[in-house]
């Protein structure tokens, strides 16, 4: 058991990892030899292979190139704020004048320092020593200055195993449109309101959240359970960055069926024989009479082998014809037609969730659902989320906020 654990915690070639430098995170696939561009840094990632998740690495300058860094595993880090000996602090800022001369080091001097040995402890100490105003700053202001500079020249990174939380935050920070504007609190409520039990069949239409939604639902369905997800998408290939990053075990991956919305519905309406027949051969294998079996085999000889997308479509149609236990729609498109179409596959006595970044399309949907007699408890809401800086004597909401999207939830009756 111990050994097995050791292995899963080791960083291996082929793993997707999240590289974290302070608050900044980036997804990276480990190859035998690979570089990562993190802001302005080019980092050679070879040295993380064989180390463990959550290990810390120091970025070291390489001799041959200015921008290139290698990584070295460390067991302790130097914190500027703690290591620096501050002798004097001011009481307020009345004597501090803003001019270009307050910092004695020029940009060239700093660049030189960076090239010699990149690292916050080294550079920040020099910055402080050459600052004419640092000792006049108040204690709090000094700390803020140090934190700000430390962040800029921070030389440590941590390798993390991707989780839904880290992925959601990462995509949203990089660009909210990567997840259709779904913020982490939106995601949490979409999932909760869909009432996803590990044993059910679940239906998702997602027009592009970098694979975050299918990954999050598959994560809730869990490994070694009975649950199944049908993930409908509008294109030829679905987005699956987040899904790949989660590195689910194979049996779990297989319980997420990715199908094109148009092609699966065409199959459902126009090709009923294809999936019904397969169902018979799959399920009734044991009790089937040999004679019948023979006929089927003969029939089959004429046909071309089925393509994998056809098999997926048929599998999805079989599940859809038995109806599903939850429905989530996160679409760029106007949601009314999609919801109207997909609601038929939802069992009665189940809830469904529709997300949109805009309020108006969901108002249209609200009015449409109101006109139906089999939908109750329709709620339209949005969220206000804010983070806090919590520091002794300096607690306040963070300066930046962002606005989330809108969520519509409702229940379908069974009649």
């Amino acid at each position: 058991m111990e050994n097995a654990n050791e292995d899963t915690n080791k960083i291996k070639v082929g793993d997707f990892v999240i590289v974290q430098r302070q608050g900044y995170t980036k997804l990276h696939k480990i190859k035998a030899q690979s570089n990562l561009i993190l802001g302005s840094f080019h980092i050679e990632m070879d040295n993380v292979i064989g180390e463990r998740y959550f290990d810390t690495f120091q970025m070291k300058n390489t001799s041959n190139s200015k921008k290139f860094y290698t990584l070295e595993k460390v067991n302790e880090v130097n914190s500027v704020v703690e290591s620096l000996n501050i002798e004097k602090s001011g009481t307020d800022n009345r004597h501090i004048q803003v001019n270009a001369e307050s910092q004695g080091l020029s940009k060239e001097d700093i660049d030189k320092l960076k090239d010699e040995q990149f690292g916050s402890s080294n550079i920040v100490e020099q910055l402080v020593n050459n600052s004419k105003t640092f000792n006049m700053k108040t204690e709090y202001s000094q700390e803020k200055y140090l934190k700000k500079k430390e962040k800029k020249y921070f030389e440590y990174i941590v390798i993390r195993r991707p989780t839904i939380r880290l992925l959601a935050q990462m995509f949203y920070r990089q660009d909210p449109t990567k997840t259709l504007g779904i913020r982490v609190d939106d995601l949490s409520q979409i999932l909760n309101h869909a009432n996803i039990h590990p044993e059910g069949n679940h239906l998702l239409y997602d027009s592009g959240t970098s694979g975050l939604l299918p990954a999050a639902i598959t994560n809730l369905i869990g490994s070694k359970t009975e649950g199944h997800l049908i993930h409908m998408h509008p294109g030829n290939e679905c987005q699956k960055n987040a899904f790949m990053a989660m590195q689910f075990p194979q049996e779990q991956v297989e319980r997420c069926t990715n199908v094109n919305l148009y092609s699966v519905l065409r199959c459902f309406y126009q090709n009923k024989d294809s999936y019904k027949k397969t169902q018979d051969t799959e399920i009734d294998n044991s009790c089937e009479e040999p004679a019948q079996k023979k006929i089927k085999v003969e029939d089959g000889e004429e046909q071309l082998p089925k393509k994998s997308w056809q098999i997926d479509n048929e599998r999805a149609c079989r599940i859809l014809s038995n109806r599903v236990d939850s429905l989530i729609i996160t679409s760029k498109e106007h949601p009314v037609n999609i919801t109207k179409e997909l609601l038929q596959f939802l069992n009665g006595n189940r809830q469904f969730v529709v997300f949109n970044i805009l309020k108006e399309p969901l108002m249209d949907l609200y009015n449409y659902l109101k006109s139906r007699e089999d939908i109750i408890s329709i709620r339209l809401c949005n969220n206000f989320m804010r983070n806090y800086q919590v520091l002794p004597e300096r607690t306040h909401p963070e300066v930046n906020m962002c606005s989330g999207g809108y969520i519509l939830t409702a229940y379908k009756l069974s009649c």
Partner: protein
Amino acid sequence: MSFEGYKDVIEEGDSVILYLTITQVYCVKAQPKIVNKKGNLVDNVFQTPFGALKCFDLIGKYYGSKISLSKGWGYVMQPNPELWTITLPHRTQIIYTPDISMIVLQLEISPGSVVIESGTGSGSLSHALIRAVKPHGHLHTFDFHEDRVKTARDEFQEHGFGKYVTVKHHDVCVNGFGDDLDNKADAVFLDLPHPWLAIPHTVKSFKDTGGRICSFSPCIEQVQKSCLILSKYGFQEIQTTEVLQTQYSVQQRTLPVLNLECLKVSKEEAELEKQIKRDVTKVMSAIPPASVPGHTGYLTFATMPPVWARNVQLNLSDIDDCNNE
């Protein structure tokens, strides 16, 4: 047994959600008799604004179907953690769905997770936690109030969640979580008046691979103390956040339109024009309620690193969600 999985037909003993209108949602039990407040066994009749409901009659009905009442109708639904949160009997202040959702996602709980919760309270969060950890995981929930422990235990049993949860009567601030939970937990949730007293005890409960913690506190002073202790005990990525939800009512409103053009012509002409034009317009709007909850509690999340990384004190707390490249 009605919380476990998806169910079609109401069986005797099931908890059933009775939905009348968006603000009138109740939870009743499908059984012939019930113990009243005086402790006597009486017929289980539930009085609704639309007439009385004999709860025994619900047995055999389909979940999600319409039922008639003497002065109207209602719908019967299978309960789930969200409906339970809005219908449960309050024994304490409870945590509502926006916060619950955030807690489940931020604690990184999935089927198989082992989660510690303290206190149990009225069990609003517990139901959502159990749904998230089952079928292989487990919830260990603690409360220092003996009656609440007993009631919660009975409730989980009745709801079919008994095998996924252990309810203990225990003051975790004083006694910790017990040696049997050493190195067992993936996530810890604290809703306590003095969370900073319990935080030190959580460290040894985490698995070697580490995990996540959340502390829910209504007051900022509690948050400040908790954050200091979290950082002292080696937690990382310490982040405090709050989530508030607004529910909109979608309505069509009719607004009068002032005709100011008529001022440019003589009175007689204006009269004529006025007769032709209707001076109202219709707008569709999503209207927030006149008053919304402005505060529930602060959620403080943090990460306990795996054992091999616990000596490295790295400041990962500067998570900045919003476009701070």
